[in-house]
């Protein structure tokens, strides 16, 4: 662990966010051409009306493009801070609204995958550590490590081909059955869960290994400590020693790992959603890429980057609270 104060961490994340905003602001301005070229040519109706110089000037000053760059940048920052991300060209709605309607689906699979990979990873880690160096332990390690090397969208394609296309056990696409009428709210929940299972399994398989290895290795180290020997000497039984004494102390690094995992899962969800045609932010991104809907692409990027940065920042702060050792400065 390197020594960084609370302030240093805050400055680091703030700078990263600022860099992203700068990039978001300058990227469109670095592209060739200007926005009024497209306004002056309407290819669909074969009407090609060239803007007169006067009209061009009017538009440029109307959109504030004649103001100095720093002024434009400041107004951009203010509008982003107010939550105004612009207007989607393709969907003709505010960008924020387009993202907002898709966000719950992404949140569902990301949180589902976080929960599933944490629980499964810790349990498997416990299982493996108790049977250290047995054939089951070795097989688990080799199998899970190989899974972790396959990126989520390729794994997702394999799972989709196996379970939905070949076995026809799970739906191919979507988050709910189209045109379905539910007689009971429980049916609706069942339907949503049924559609979300494969994306959640895919996402969690990629992160499971990290949690599993971390739990297993920390448990193995913790079990050599003196207090474990003391607990055993008290005669409280092997089960309690593992759960109450060992697992509790091994969970601390897992907490950080889970936090950082959420950020990685959000990145992975973008691709996995497209594999399963799941209607979250990721598939919105793909359709906006195909439609070249630049304001929407930028908005999605900004929302994702902001949430990843926020989660990671919170994790660092929380971790410092949980483990005071990290805040004490060691020599670099």
């Amino acid at each position: 662990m390197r020594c960084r104060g609370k302030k240093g961490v805050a400055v680091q994340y703030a700078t990263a966010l600022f860099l992203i905003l700068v990039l978001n602001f300058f990227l469109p301005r670095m592209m060739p051409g200007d926005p009024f070229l497209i306004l002056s040519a309407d290819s669909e109706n074969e009407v090609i009306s060239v803007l007169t110089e006067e009209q061009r000037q009017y538009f440029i000053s109307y959109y504030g493009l004649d103001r100095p760059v720093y002024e434009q940048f400041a107004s951009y920052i203010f509008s982003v801070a107010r939550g105004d991300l612009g207007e989607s060209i393709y969907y003709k709605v505010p960008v924020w609204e387009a993202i907002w309607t898709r966000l719950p689906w992404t949140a569902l699979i990301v949180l589902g995958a976080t929960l599933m990979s944490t629980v499964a990873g810790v349990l498997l880690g416990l299982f493996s550590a108790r049977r250290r160096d047995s054939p089951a332990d070795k097989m688990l390690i080799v199998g899970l490590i190989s899974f972790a090397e396959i990126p989520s969208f390729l794994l997702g394609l394999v799972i989709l081909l196996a379970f939905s296309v070949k076995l026809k056990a799970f739906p191919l696409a979507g988050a709910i059955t189209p045109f379905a009428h539910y007689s009971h709210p429980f049916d609706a929940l069942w339907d949503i869960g049924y559609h979300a299972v494969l994306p959640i399994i895919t996402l969690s398989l990629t992160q499971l290994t990290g949690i599993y290895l971390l739990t297993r290795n920390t448990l193995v180290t913790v079990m050599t400590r003196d207090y474990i020997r003391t607990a055993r000497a008290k005669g409280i039984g092997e089960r309690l020693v593992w759960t109450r004494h060992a697992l509790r102390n091994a969970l601390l690094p897992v907490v950080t790992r889970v936090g950082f995992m959420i950020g990685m899962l959000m990145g992975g969800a973008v691709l996995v959603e497209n594999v399963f045609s799941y209607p979250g932010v990721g598939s919105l991104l793909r359709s906006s890429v195909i439609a070249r809907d630049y304001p929407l692409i930028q908005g999605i990027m900004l929302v994702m980057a902001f949430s990843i940065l926020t989660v990671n920042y919170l994790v660092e702060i929380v971790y410092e609270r949980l483990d005071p050792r990290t805040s004490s400065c060691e020599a670099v």
Partner: protein
Amino acid sequence: MAEAVCEAWRQEKEASFKAAQKAAKMAGFRAIKADLNIVSKNEETLRGLLAAALDSICDSIGRFSPAGKMGIAGLLLIVFIAVFAPFVTFYDPSAISGMSLEPPGPDHILGTDELGMDIWSQICYGTRMSLVIGLAVAMISGVGGGFLGLMAGYMGGNWDKVLLRTIDITMALPSFPLLIVIAAFLNPSILNVILVLVFLSWAKPARVVRSQALAMKKQQYIISARLYGAGPVYIIRRHIMPEALPLIFVSILNISSYAIVAESGLAFLGLGDPTSKSWGMMLHYATSFRSIYFTPYWQWWLMPPLIALIFLLLCLAFIGRDMERIVDPRLRSRGGQ
């Protein structure tokens, strides 16, 4: 009055101190220059360095596990296919050489795609794309980042502080969203993809090598070498480089699989270079094909690039894991793998 005198005295002292510092710095620079001269005069240096690197690589391959050896064999096979792509295929990858969506048969080993292009040819030529992107990104950011880390770690001072801050900020950037937005705005040529990936991945090798250099600088034998009058370039080349090279090599392997995944992911989203044949673009076209899962086409259109990508990544991963194990003996005693 007394205060003024005091102030003057302090300033004078500071000035003399600074001059001494400057002189020391100048001496340091001169030492580097002299050292560089010796290095450049000694022609065998580069060859010697390369030979040493090759030796260490060969030595570590001997200690590979069976999985690692399989990985190397697989990687060699892939490199072979990439280099000799025109000799192992029968058609040009972007020539329409058959009917649309032909199943695998004697004419087309793996069938044809929607436009009647041979899929085996596309796979073979796509190998080049993946390997070039992986290798280029990994070499530039591994060697460049490693060099920056080495310099910063060894020289210390303000450069080190600046580099450390930059590394921290770069590592905090969420890479995938950034990658998407930059690729969407720049035109998606191979060069742009490589540059963006380098920008996002140089920080890790820099950090690893920096801490290694920092730790080694305090070692007894390096201090004694310096006291015997060895210049910084000599020490870095003779003592620190051999220790840092394996670390750089491991991060080159890791970065190359990261780059391959990122490129195919971008292409899968539709942000790849439309004129190029790559595995990611094949996945993109196949999954964009309407109702492909209700037809048998996925069996010969979607499966080959999928299997090829997974195969390449697993090979790289097996090699990387063995390298890591050999480079870092601590891992073995940690009770883990």
